[in-house]
């Protein structure tokens, strides 16, 4: 591989690696903005990954897989918001319950449906999209034609989330619930409703992120395939200052180191050391760079009606 091709490879795999991260970080952003701690992302993502494969397997269409992923991502997020908002459970515990539940149910499902441990059968998945119009453009054409539908979906969703959160009344109300639930309640906003909406939509997004892994990057479910991306999303979310566009930039940053590690294959620098870089950098930024009041002030706060 010459240098030019290597750069193109790094750029296209950066995007490919960061797409699931973008989606699950958007999920985290939406949850935190509505005042819900985003600890259940890992579980919702696992649910999306495994049920996405199941939907695709049962119907033979990857689109039904996406539908399954979104619906089951939301259903698992329901456990989180139900325990945390309705029964005032500490959000760490309710979030971890979702993670435990999903990571227990996924292998059980694989066992029941495909009759073996660890991985599912191959199912219909999304192919890379070849766009004839961009093929002619040097570099960009090559990079874009390596991507699946999830790449475009994640960009559209990030833009939509920015639009809704910062340019509409609904978004303003949702952010107010996240910042100060008591004040929001005083002016007649249904705090519980908005928290449910924020978390359920967030769960749907995380489920989509799981599908981006299992039927976007691959065509099967492998146990442990999310590899802690739900936790990484929490970190990227703080790094991107709880902003949808920050989620995109932060995910690309983490994806970049992922793809560097693939290029070097541990030849120049051990891949683990390379993979440590984004965490190290984020640790510095989160500790020394951000102002103290950056997360929504009403995070995990209840109001009593």
């Amino acid at each position, binding site marked *: 591989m010459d240098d030019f091709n290597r750069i193109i490879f790094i750029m296209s795999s950066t995007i490919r690696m960061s797409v699931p991260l973008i989606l699950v970080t958007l999920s985290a952003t939406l949850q935190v903005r509505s005042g819900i701690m985003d600890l259940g992302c890992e579980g919702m993502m696992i649910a999306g990954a495994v049920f996405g494969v199941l939907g695709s397997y049962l119907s033979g269409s990857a689109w039904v897989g996406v539908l399954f992923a979104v619906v089951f991502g939301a259903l698992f997020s*329901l456990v989180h918001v139900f325990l945390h908002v309705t029964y005032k459970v500490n959000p760490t515990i309710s979030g971890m319950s979702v993670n435990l539940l999903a990571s227990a149910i996924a292998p*059980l499902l694989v066992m029941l449906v495909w009759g073996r441990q660890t991985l599912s059968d191959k199912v219909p998945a999304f192919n890379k999209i070849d766009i004839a119009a961009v093929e002619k453009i040097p570099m960009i054409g090559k990079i874009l034609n390596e991507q699946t539908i999830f790449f475009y979906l994640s960009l559209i969703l990030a833009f939509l989330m920015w639009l809704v959160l910062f340019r509409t009344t609904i978004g303003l109300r949702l952010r107010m619930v996240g910042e100060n639930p008591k004040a929001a309640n005083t002016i007649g906003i249904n705090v519980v409703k908005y928290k449910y909406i924020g978390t359920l939509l967030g769960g749907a997004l995380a489920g989509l992120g799981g599908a981006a892994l299992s039927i976007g990057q691959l065509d099967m479910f492998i146990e442990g395939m999310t590899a*802690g991306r739900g*936790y990484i999303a929490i970190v990227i979310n703080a790094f991107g200052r709880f902003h949808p566009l920050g989620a995109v930039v932060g995910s690309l940053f983490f994806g970049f180191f992922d793809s560097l590690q693939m290029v070097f294959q541990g030849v120049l620098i051990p891949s*683990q050391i390379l993979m440590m870089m984004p965490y*190290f950098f984020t640790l510095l930024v989160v500790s020394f760079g951000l102002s103290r009041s950056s997360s929504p002030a009403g995070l995990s706060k209840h109001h009593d009606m």
Partner: protein
Amino acid sequence: MIHWKESSYKQLLREGSNKIKVPFIAFLLALVCGAVTIIISGYSPVEAYRAIIVGSLTTTRGFVLSLAQATPIMFTGLAFGIAYRVRLINLGSEGQLYIGAMVSALIGAHVSFLPGFSHVLVAMIAGAVAGGLVGLLISWLKIAFGAHEVITSLMLNELIILFTSYLSIGPAKAENSPISQTDMILDSARLVKMVPRSQLTVALLVVIAIAVILQLLLSKTALGYEMKAVGNNLLAAKVGGIHVKKVYHFTFFVSGAMAGLAGSSFVLGVFGRFIDHFSNGIGFAGISVAALAGYSPVGVLFSAFVIGILKAGALTLQRTTPVPIEFVSVVQAFIVVFVAAPKMVNSIISSPRELGKIIKRKVVSRG
């Protein structure tokens, strides 16, 4: 939600007996949900539960195995529980466990001048200190820079797991080993086995002693009083002149040290070396164990034993029945869901109709 509000006076009356009753009923509900899962999967729940009980409680071997499986979770349960009493969330157990394991493995394999019993002691204490220092780093970042401990502890998990993985693949890798693992520890660094040819070591006695000490610390000492005060009402504690920083540092050090000991007990008692990615979520399992015990140190011993029974029973389940072993961790997850929400269980107790509603919801969410 409105329901338990209305019956709040009943709740007050119940509060005393509820401390035991609610977790117990939560546990039963989790077993019922687990049974429903098995029925949906097309197997017999009676057969499954019997296999678990038979495999873990009726034979000495099974009982010993349950205790051995429970020991590391006892440590990580203490790690989460003690921090939670001060309303600190230590999600970094997984990383602290790995660094503790690595430090113990290196000292166990490469330090040969320590006489007799002191070798294993030093290896273990060093593992605890390594975990504790990571805990201190989290509390320092929290106090000095306002960085939230959830985010920093998750980040440190990834950093440490990658770093120990690098060590076990690179500089500290055992020669001629096909997989990434460190050198075997010396015999003088091995924890004494309590039962020959089992995984049960004196680490169990260590964790029991520590749990009792932590319980006494919380209930009998001034420091324990300060910890509880900070946990119950941070503002009042500050106004009352409690040195909050000191309490945070101490708590996070102890919490990290517990997780480090969990790693040490694996290396010095079970594997005899550090194996890359060996833990598979033991650190996170501590959260559920601590919640199940109501964050009481001594309670953690018992709740971890319950999980140990499930884990040991799972092996029998796999050997003697067609029920998939994966189902055991589903039951475990249900236990956490129900035990974590005492108010939910309360409302279930006070209204059977609510129970039907919730079970329906659970079934739907599982598909």
